[in-house]
């Protein structure tokens, strides 16, 4: 298991191991975690692999310890990740708030499971968006295959470094515990993004003064910049302030650095959308069943299409609206009580009808179930 796997391009790999390998390929050299099923194989793999590449692993006393340890490591200049499952993500929300406020790049893997048991779900789709106190935007990527777990984990690191925001890889028990064939790209094929570094000496540096893209450069601890990272309202020097105008502007910028760059951040894939009358909008494992359902519908002569969202947050209103303008109806299948549907419906208000297709019994939809909904909505 030396370095990045290059001995063979193809591997038959467990989803959780693909997350670990993707992280290492992205340059992650610190991992802190707390045991929870179905995320344990990520910690186990990281504990084995990180020392081989000179990185550090620690099993912390709880999820709070884990999230703050990775923030500490990131502030010290090391790319860092933690992994948990739904109930553990609850605890991490506290630290996510700090990472948002101090613009600390971190990656959090949430392998979603139903409450109190190990069954697949999309129940955290709103928790990962809103589950932190205070105003914030989140970047959340939802893979639907083992290959995507690898690829999107790299993308998650790149986005967190570029925008200095926490990024979530929203996995699911099904994908994380599945083994599939994946192709490990050669290191030279992998794009690595690193945070911007100050170009001026400490006495001229304002750690929270953004550049054109809304993102300030970031110094590592120990370089002499002596930066204060505080959750309190802070000015461009990082100093705590009671000035509410500065507070308002700070969070305006922290939010705008994400929403002004939607086209760069939001990634998606379209299948059979060009001439579609009816479109499925979904993410994660549901996109697999949905694609099969769309193919079955096409075989029956129904012009169905699929918009698979890779980036589920931030929500790209214009992208969804432009789809709504092209189709007569949108179906949103999800493994929960129908949560993301509301967001799609909000964006499509007055343009086209949006129908929810929820399943909340610890399993994904079968393609036939989605097909039958397509038929009934035509």
């Amino acid at each position, binding site marked *: *298991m*030396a370095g990045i796997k290059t001995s063979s391009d193809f591997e038959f790999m467990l989803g959780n191991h693909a997350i670990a390998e993707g992280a290492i390929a992205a340059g992650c*050299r*610190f991992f*802190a975690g707390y045991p929870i099923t179905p995320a344990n194989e990520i910690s186990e793999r990281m504990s084995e692999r990180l*020392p*081989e590449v*000179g990185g*550090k692993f*620690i099993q*912390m*006393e*709880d999820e*709070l*310890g*884990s*999230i*703050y*340890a*990775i*923030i*500490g*490591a*990131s*502030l*010290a*200049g*090391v790319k*860092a990740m933690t992994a948990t499952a739904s109930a553990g993500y609850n605890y991490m929300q*506290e*630290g996510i708030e*700090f990472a948002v*406020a101090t613009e600390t790049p971190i990656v959090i893997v949430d392998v979603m499971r139903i409450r109190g048991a190990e069954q697949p779900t999309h129940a955290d789709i709103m928790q990962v968006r809103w589950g932190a106190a205070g105003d914030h935007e989140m970047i959340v990527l939802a893979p639907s295959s083992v290959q995507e777990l690898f690829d999107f984990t790299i993308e998650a690191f790149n986005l967190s470094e570029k925008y200095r925001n926490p990024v979530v890889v929203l996995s699911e028990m099904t994908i994380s515990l599945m083994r599939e064939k994946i192709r490990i790209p050669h290191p030279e094929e992998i794009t690595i993004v690193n945070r911007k570094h100050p170009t001026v000496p400490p006495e001229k540096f304002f750690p929270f003064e953004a550049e054109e893209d809304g993102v300030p450069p970031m110094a*590592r*601890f*120990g*370089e*002499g*910049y*002596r*930066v*204060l*990272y*505080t*959750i*309190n309202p802070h000015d461009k*020097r990082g*100093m*705590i302030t009671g000035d509410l105008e500065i507070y308002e502007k700070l969070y305006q910028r922290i939010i705008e650095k994400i929403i002004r760059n939607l086209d760069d951040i939001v990634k998606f894939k379209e299948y059979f959308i060009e001439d579609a009358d009816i479109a499925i909008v979904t993410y994660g494992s549901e996109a697999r069943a949905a694609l099969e359902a769309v193919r079955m519908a096409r075989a029956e002569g129904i012009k169905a299409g699929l918009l698979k969202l890779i980036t589920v947050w931030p929500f790209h209103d214009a992208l969804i609206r432009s789809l709504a303008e092209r189709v007569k109806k949108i179906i949103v299948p999800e493994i929960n009580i129908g949560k993301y549907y509301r967001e799609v419906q909000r964006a499509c208000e007055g343009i086209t009808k949006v129908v929810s297709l929820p399943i909340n019994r610890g399993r994904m939809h079968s393609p036939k179930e989605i097909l039958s909904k397509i038929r009934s909505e035509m």
Partner: protein
Amino acid sequence: MAHPNLNYLRPGSLPHMYCPGCGVGQILNCLIYAVKELDLDMNKVVTIGGVGCTSRIPAYFNTDAIHGIHGRNLAFATGVKLANPELSVLVIMGDGDCAAIGGNHLIQAARRNLDVTVIVNNNMNYGMTGGQVSPTTPTGATTTTTSRGNIEKPFDLCKLVEAAGGTFISRWTTAHIPQLINSIKRGIMHRGFSFIEVVAQCPTQFGRYALGLRDPVENLRWLRENSVTKTQAEKMSEEELRGKIIVGDFVEKDEPTLVEQYEVILKKAQLIQR
């Protein structure tokens, strides 16, 4: 002429937010004397606070710093120290951060012998929020949430950290300035988990509600009169020691630190790889 220690404070951070006569200023002053006398490279120091009056020290002390999450100081410190072992990590917190919300992080960091220096201002109550009872408030004391007297027993933080595995442990009060500076210096130089408890006055809250003393000088006198050195304490009965603050350097042990142990793991992993 500027004060010779002013360069240890973050430019533009004054005036500070502390009440007149607060013990936090003394603790910050002792910390500054300690790092100055050790001639530490201040560019390699990271100071980590949580939430509360004491935890605001990193906003004034001119180093790389983390501030603003209650009790998680040592969790941050674990990541910082493992990521870059060359950094000197100072963890500054109050008794709420340390003994209540962050209690688990405290004992786990001590158990790991994480190579950081912890300075805890034990003012026996939650000062910033209005003088509520804390895990170090003496039994019977009146606070804003124990108006009929505290029914709980206080933690002996030094004993707690010793049992958890801390390898340098001291306790002083703000009436023992030279001793405190000396112990902070020894704590910073010690390899491993250093824990320095400072029992300090909070004239605005604990002094007023629990001791009936509003004058800071009266509060300091109370601290001095109620302190006994560990040598004196050895000759005293349990009855005589009740309510007394035992001060001194209690523990100094040479044990491998978390980072040193991890270096062994790194070597093993890389040997096998080759």
